[in-house]
C-alpha cells in the first residue's frame, strides 16, 4: 500500500501533472473552441425549454450544464431535438399545460422531450432503464420545491421528535 503522503508537492511527477492540469484549465482545448457555437445553441435551447417546462426562470447554471451533458450523452440527437422544441415553443407561444398534448397530436418526434427534461430537473434522473442514471438528488427540483417542509429522504429531518410539530 502506498503511503499517500509519500509523494509530496515537491515530487517532480506531481509537479508536472499539476502544471499540466493548470494549463488545461487556463487554455480551453481546441476541440472545445470549434464545437462551441453548435454546443451553445443546444445549451441555450435546453435552458429556454427548461425555463418553460420547470416553471422556473432561474435555474442553477452548474446543474443546467450537468443535466444537459447527461441528456446529450444519453441521446446524441438531444441538441437538435431540443433546439427544434425551443423553436416550436417560441413560434407558437405554447402554454406549458398544453405542451404535451400539442406534441402528442402534432409533433410526435418531439413528444418524449418534455418528460425527459422535466424528469431530469424534477427527479434528477436522465435516461431510461437500464441506462437511467441519477444526476441530482438533493438539488433536484422535487427536493428544492418542498425544502421549506421536507428534507430529501435519507437526510435527518431534525432533532428527535421534531416531526411531532405541526408543519409550517
Amino acid at each position, binding site marked *: 500500500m502506498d503511503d499517500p503522503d509519500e509523494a509530496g508537492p515537491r515530487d517532480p511527477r506531481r509537479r508536472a501533472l499539476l502544471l499540466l492540469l493548470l494549463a488545461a484549465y487556463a487554455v480551453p482545448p481546441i476541440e472545445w473552441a470549434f464545437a462551441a457555437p453548435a454546443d451553445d445553441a443546444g445549451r441555450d435551447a435546453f435552458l429556454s425549454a427548461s425555463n*418553460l*417546462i*420547470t*416553471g*422556473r426562470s432561474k435555474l442553477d447554471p452548474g446543474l443546467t450544464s450537468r443535466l444537459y451533458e447527461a441528456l446529450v450523452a444519453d441521446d446524441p440527437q438531444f441538441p437538435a431535438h431540443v433546439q427544434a422544441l425551443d423553436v416550436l415553443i417560441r413560434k407558437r407561444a405554447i*402554454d*406549458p*399545460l398544453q*405542451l*404535451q*398534448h400539442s406534441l*402528442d397530436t402534432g409533433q410526435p418526434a418531439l413528444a418524449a422531450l*418534455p*418528460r425527459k427534461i*422535466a*424528469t431530469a430537473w*424534477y*427527479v434528477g*434522473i436522465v*435516461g431510461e*432503464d*437500464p441506462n*437511467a*442514471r*441519477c444526476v441530482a*438528488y*438533493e438539488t433536484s*427540483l*422535487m*427536493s428544492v*420545491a*418542498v425544502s421549506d*417542509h*421536507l*428534507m430529501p*429522504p*435519507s*437526510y*435527518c*429531518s*431534525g*432533532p*428527535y*421528535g*421534531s*416531526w*411531532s*410539530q*405541526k*408543519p*409550517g
Partner: protein
Amino acid sequence: MPDSLAADVVVIGSGICGSLAAHRLVTQGASVLILEAGPRIDRGQITANFRNSSRKNDYMSPYPFSPWAPHPDYHPKDNGYLVQAGPYPYPAEYIRVVGGTTWHWAAQAWRVLPNDLRIKTLYGVGRDWPLTYEELEPYYYDAEVIMGVSGAPNTGSPRAKPFPMEPVAEPWPMRRFRERLAPGGYEVVGNTTARNSRTYDGRPACCGNNNCQPICPIGAQYDGGIAADAAEVAGAKLIPKAVVYRIEHDPQGRIAAVHYYDPDKHSIRVTGKLFILAANGIETPKLLLMSASDKYPTGLANSSGTVGRNLMDHPSSSLTFDAEEEMWLGRGPQSPSSINTLRDGAFRSERAAFRLDFTNISQVYAAAQDLITAGVYGPELEKQLRYRAAHQVSVKNVLEVLPHPQNRVVLSTQKDALGLPKPEVHYSMDDYVHRGMAAARTHYARIAELMGGTNLRYTPEGQYANNQHITGTMSMGNDPKDSVVDPFGRTHDHENLFIAGTGVMPTSATCNSTMTAVAIALRTVQHIRQTA
C-alpha cells in the same frame, strides 16, 4: 481456505434469526460457524447507493444481487431468479447478504394476537399453532430487549413487562389521523417497532431520515446486520460468500455436514454437532429439497411432504387520497401508526382479518413522477407537486392469508450461475382473501370521509401488493405427518437439524412476521441449551 471446516453449531444464513441464534449459542460457550451465501455490505455504501439510485421507490435497487448467490430482482428487468409458476404472481423480495433482508425492513416488530394461534379451534379455518401465546410471551420480551422495541400498550397482544423503551414520537400526520378518525370509532395507535426513541445499545435515536426502507442511514432501527456484527464480536465465525448447496446425513439420519460453494465453485465440507437452517422461507426449503438422497428421496426433513408447501405472505390493497388539511408525510419514520382493532373477531371464519397501516413515506417522489407522466409542466408542476406532497396520504391493509398446500416453493428446472436449481413458486389467492379485501375497502372509504379526503384512488380490485413476509413453508406442528419441525424448531426427521425463521410459522397471522420468528428462534436456542 481448507476443504473442510468444523464447529459445534453450524448456522446457515446470517439474517436476523440465524445471527441472533448464533450470538446466543456462542455466548453460551459453543463454537459457532455462520455460513452466508451473500457478501458483506456496508451501511454507508447502501445509503450512497440509494441516493444515487435511478429508482428511489425500488427498495431492492441499493442492494445489487451477487452472480453466485442471486436474490430476486425485478427492476429494471426481472433477473429470473424466482421462477413464477402462477397462477397468482408472488414477486417476493429478499436480500442475500450478511445480515439478510431486515436491512430494508420498516422495523415492524409485532407480536401476534393470542387468537391468531388458535384460528382453527376458534374459527374453523387455517391451522392451530402447536404452542400458546403464553409460551411465546417471554421470548417476545427477550427479543424486544435485544432489538430495542417500543410501541403502544393496547394493540391486543398481552405483555408481562413494559416495552424496554418509550414509544417513538408520533409524527404530526399520524396525530391528525388519530384525532380525526376517533369519532368514527377507529383507534389509531403507534406501531410496535424496533426503532430507537433514545440511544439504545450503542445506537442512536431516530432522527427522522424517513428512509427506514430501503436503509436506515444511522442504524436507529434494529436489523440483521447489527445481529450479525454482534454474533461475530461474541466469537462466532462468519464466512460470507458461502453458498450451502447440500446437507449430508449419516445412515441414522443425523446431519453430518453441509457443503458449500465459494463464488469460484470450490466446494468446502463443514461438519458440526448441530445445524440450524436460517436461510429464509424460500431458500431453506430449497436447500432441504436439493439435499434429497437415496434414504430421503423427497428431500430432507420432508417425510410429511410439506417442505415448501403452505406458502403464505401478507397481501395489501390500499387507498391513496388527498386529505383535507396539510399533512406533509415524510417527517419522521416511515411506518408509525396503524389500526389494530380489525385483526380478530367471529368474521374470521368467513374472511381474512387485517391490520390497517398508515404510511408516513414522503409523497414527493411519487407525486413528481405522476405529474410528469400526466404532462403537467410549467408553474403548475411545482404548485401541484407541493399540494400533493402536503395533502396526499394513503392507508393499506396487511392481510392474513390461510395456508394451502398447493401454494408452495419447489425446485425449478432452471439453474443459477453455480448450477443450482432456482426456486419456483406456485401461488394463488382464495375468496377468503378477496372477501377480506372487500371489507377493507369499506373501511378505506370511511377513513377518507373522516379525513375530508378527495381524489380517492383505490388499488385495482384483485391486484394486491406483496409484503415480503414469507411464511409457512416449513410449518411447526406436533404431528410429524403434517409438519416439518416440532414446536421447538427441531425437524421431526433429523434430531440435530433445526430451522429458524418465518417459514416455521403455521399461519401468517395478522401482523408482520419478523418478531415472531425471532421469538421462536430464541425459544429454539433455549431448547437446544436445555436438551444438549
